């Protein structure tokens, strides 16, 4: 739902979210903080408009549970691992820069994937090319092709979990046969464009 003010579109969701943040920061849900919060929220949204994100997502609850719990597990294991690399005796580790091809077209899904990949230790995201769907990252402990394949597999699996949690039709993206058919169904010029 959207309202209008001074020619700007304001989403009620953003106003609600900013108001909640304001009230929580004051730590007291009184009338004054709530009214003040709404005022500040509207002011912020009018003064600093954000580009609209075209969202076409569907939440799959089970996929989200899998995504979050696996993420917390990865975070714990990898944090301890990198911490150990930092303090362990002996020569310190080296890493490598590598490119990984993502499968999801949606920028929002690519963003979520990149954020989660960046948060899990062992990989730092350097760049993301949304049109080419190319994620450039730096990975620790990559010394040969086998290590590189391991990192690629992990990132792919992470993206698959993100797609399973948010994409309206996950299998259309993840099933290689259906992805190929969808690509063939489009005219040739569009395909070249995408590459």
């Amino acid at each position, binding site marked *: 739902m959207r309202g209008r003010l001074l020619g700007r579109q304001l989403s009620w969701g953003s106003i609600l979210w900013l108001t909640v*943040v304001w009230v*929580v*920061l004051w*730590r*007291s849900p009184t009338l004054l903080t709530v009214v003040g919060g709404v005022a500040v929220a509207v002011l912020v949204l009018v003064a600093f408009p954000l580009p609209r994100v075209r969202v076409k997502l569907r939440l799959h609850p089970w996929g989200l549970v899998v995504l979050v719990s696996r993420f917390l597990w990865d*975070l*714990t294991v*990898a*944090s*301890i691992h*990198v*911490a*150990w*690399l*930092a*303090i362990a005796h002996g020569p*310190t*580790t*080296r*890493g*490598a*820069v*590598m*490119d990984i*091809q993502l*499968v999801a077209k949606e920028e929002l899904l690519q963003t979520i994937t*990149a*954020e989660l990949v*960046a*948060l*899990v*230790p*062992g990989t*730092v*995201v*350097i*760049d993301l090319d949304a049109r080419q769907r190319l994620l*450039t990252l*730096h990975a*620790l402990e*990559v010394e040969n*092709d086998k290590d*590189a394949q391991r990192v*690629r597999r992990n990132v792919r699996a992470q993206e698959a979990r993100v797609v399973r949690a948010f994409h309206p039709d996950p299998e259309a993206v993840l099933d290689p046969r259906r*992805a*190929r058919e*969808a*690509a*063939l169904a489009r005219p040739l010029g569009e*395909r070249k464009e*995408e*590459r």
Partner: protein
Amino acid sequence: MSWTTVADLLGLLSLLGGAMLCFAAGVGVVRFPDLLTRMHAGTKPQVLGLLLVLLGVWLRTRSGMDGLVLLLVGFFQLVTIPAGAHMVGRAGFRTGQVRPADIHPGRRERVDPSGEEAGPPPDDGARTPDG
């Protein structure tokens, strides 16, 4: 042992674990050899370390409103840490702070959605740091 004691104990353990992870992050920043590996140490063990510290603080105070504030802190950290790391990493990469030897020499794999053979990509193989 009452519930408050258990919560206090868990809170202290979380604080200790978080502090140790942050310490390891600091050691990593000193010991790791180059910019990008330091980025790993500087951003990563710290994420879990920070979450543990926040959890520990909440377990010690046990107040709902404080909990919400701590939740906000954790949320914004999780959202902003990758952005900060990304900016520094990309700046370093583009200004040539990364040795060419650290760039994975393997052929860049491509998934071509149309299924036809992609042929050699224009920047096949190693990427140059200023690429």
